[in-house]
């Protein structure tokens, strides 16, 4: 760092003081990179999720410090919506974090655009995930290359407040009940009025995973293999009508309460004490239980009939990806391995991100499970038996279509549009978005 000095010599009139200042500044600047080089390698790790997840992750980061003191991991987390905004901005600004919590929905977009690093070279060499099974490894592949390491397996599920259902004397949601029976039970719970302002269920009409499961039970899908919609207006009209009926009867929360839900555990109607059941991802059960005083129960979805498919599928709840620009790659791979394949790391993360994909790690965890974890494991065991294949990854524009589903279902809930018109509107807007790409 001699540049400032040279520059100063060029100038015609320099005082002794300015020369001194320049020298000090130069020394200070040259000291910076050196200071960093002496300290640990610093990498950034980003994820989305609740405070509970942050606590567990930070604990794992701290624990890894003992394994590899040379790697300094700086964690950043945010909510789901902000997360993707921030990540895209950082990647565009060539400031991508080194280690990225990735979702099945986005891994294709990021991998195809060269933002992620292929990890095949580390398989068996630092990354010991062979016992994940082919399905759980392949869900992290794009175009044959591995870009994501499975952090856990989950499925959409039905959560309910066991105490409230018991108090109301209504049979709680359980596997095997039909959608009609489920609706009747919700209505019965609302009518029992054990407390003013409580309803049987949150408004499921805007919940995309719920719609997807409902479609799969009827032999349709959210997206077809060619990236177009896998259903037509009549299908989603039936969906909207089902919820419309429950809403009018008072079995589910009214529109203005439903609209307070911001797709987070904290704002869900179950957590805010308005609804006594809700749809959520099975791994979120841990977070929900943390924020809910009474004991929660966990069930698979209502069924479409005795010989209809369950619609459930096991999904990588999230994956870990390295940015193509990641630093200290081998050290970071070591940390990833610590989180998914080492008992110490797996025990810290627990089931909060989903049930571990590794058979050995599942066994490892089974000894230390608490009551909450056990329910999640039991549910995943039930779902494993009835699961149907993983759908193709959603096309680009899927995120925007999720927003359209929210908006149209709100329009129906606030009665500015009928379920029939809402269905037509949804399909035409979704088609337009998919065509636009």
């Amino acid at each position, binding site marked *: 760092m001699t540049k400032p000095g040279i520059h100063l010599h060029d100038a015609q009139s320099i005082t002794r003081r300015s020369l001194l200042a320049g020298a000090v500044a130069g020394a200070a600047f040259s000291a910076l990179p050196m200071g960093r080089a002496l300290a640990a390698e610093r990498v950034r790790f980003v994820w989305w999720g609740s405070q509970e997840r942050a606590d567990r992750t930070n604990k794992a980061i701290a624990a890894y410090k003992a394994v590899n003191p040379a790697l300094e991991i700086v964690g950043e987390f945010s909510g789901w919506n902000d997360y993707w*905004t921030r990540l895209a901005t950082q990647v565009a600004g060539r400031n991508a974090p080194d280690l990225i919590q990735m979702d099945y929905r986005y891994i294709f*977009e990021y991998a195809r655009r060269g933002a992620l690093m292929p990890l095949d070279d580390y398989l068996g060499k630092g990354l010991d995930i062979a016992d994940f099974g082919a399905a759980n490894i392949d869900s992290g592949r794009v175009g044959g290359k591995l870009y994501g390491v499975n952090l856990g397996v989950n499925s959409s599920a039905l959560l309910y407040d066991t105490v409230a259902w018991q108090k109301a004397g209504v049979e709680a949601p359980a596997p095997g009940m039909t959608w009609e029976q489920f609706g009747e039970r919700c209505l019965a719970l609302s009518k029992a009025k054990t407390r003013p302002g409580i309803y049987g269920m949150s408004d499921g009409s805007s919940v995309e995973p719920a719609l997807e499961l409902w479609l799969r039970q009827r032999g349709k899908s959210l997206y077809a293999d060619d990236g177009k919609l896998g259903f037509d207006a009549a299908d989603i009209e039936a969906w909207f009508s089902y919820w419309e009926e429950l809403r009018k009867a008072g079995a589910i929360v009214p529109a*203005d309460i439903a609209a307070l839900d*911001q797709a987070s555990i904290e704002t869900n109607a179950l957590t805010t004490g308005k609804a006594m059941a809700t749809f959520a991802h099975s791994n979120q059960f841990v977070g929900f239980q943390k924020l809910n005083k009474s004991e929660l129960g966990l069930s698979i979805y209502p069924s479409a009939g005795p010989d209809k498919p369950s619609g459930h599928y096991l999904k990588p709840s999230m994956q870990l990806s390295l940015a193509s620009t990641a630093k200290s790659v081998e050290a970071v791979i070591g940390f990833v391995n610590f989180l998914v394949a080492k008992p110490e790391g797996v025990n810290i993360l627990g089931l909060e991100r989903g049930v571990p994909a590794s058979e050995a790690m599942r066994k490892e965890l089974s000894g230390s499970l608490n009551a909450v974890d056990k329910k999640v494991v039991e549910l995943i065991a039930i779902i494993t038996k009835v699961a149907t294949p993983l759908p193709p990854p959603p096309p680009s524009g899927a995120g925007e279509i999720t927003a359209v589903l929210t908006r149209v279902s709100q329009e129906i809930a*606030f009665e500015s549009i009928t379920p029939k018109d809402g269905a037509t509107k949804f399909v035409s807007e979704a088609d337009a978005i998919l065509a636009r790409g």
Partner: protein
Amino acid sequence: MATTSIARPQAGVRPEGGGLLHRLFGRQPAGYLFLLPWLVGFLGLTLGPALASLYLSFTDYNLLESPNWVGAANYVRIATADPRFVAAMRVTLLYVVLSVPLKLVFALLVAMAFNRGLKGLPLYRAIFYLPSLLGSSVAIAVLWRQLFAGDGLVNMALWQLFGIEGPSWISNPRYSLYTLVILSVWQFGSPMIIFLAGLRQIPVDMYEAANLDGASKMRQFFKITLPLLTPVIFFNAVIQTIDAFKAFTPAFIISDGQGGPVNSTLFYTLYLYQEGFGFFRMGYASALAWILVVIIGAFTAFSFLSARYWVHYDE
């Protein structure tokens, strides 16, 4: 520059002239030096990005891949085939039309109350200015959400005082925008301070003369106060209109960045943000941004043109 020869030789600058720097900055290098922090910020952080966004508005930039030139396609789509643009425009115009006049009237009323010579005026002024300082912050938007939610303070008060069971104001598309208008009106501090200064400028002898002639307070207000205040009203109206067009934080926080329920709080800036950062259409978002620049420019130009008919600068 013929005047360079007059420039006084200064320490550190070659007196011969001729150098590019010298020709550029002429005879006031010290002045430009002091201007530099602002100038660097303006060129690097305002003008540069603005020009970049003008270029991007003609591309399909998606943040992850390099931009491709698409000509005027973005502008054509906005003008012909974007229902959400229309929805966002509607919401924003409604917000501007409601919030700006209400805020100005409110600010003027409070300023006039203060102008009657209150004891402890600085204290009150500070207290009433406080919401404006907090106004665009995230915390206030969160507070607003709590106040106007279904079981928020507002509904509790309505129930206790009138026995009315209010809806969840903030999450009902019929009312949500109005709660944001109220939030904006509540932040009347800065126009109030400017009105107060304007009121102080009006010569007292005019009111004395009017009193002698037996003019009522109302008549004095309309014939003296209002006409003499028009330059200040004009200034406040222009500034507040621009601010209202650019409103973002309250709607973003209250609707979790979605502009909901049912697009009822989809401010133009929020829609722009969604397109750019939510759906990765940075090119399209840039085009939206430039259209907003043109709209705000048109409104401001219209205000200045109309000013000649209602703003009195003469004493």
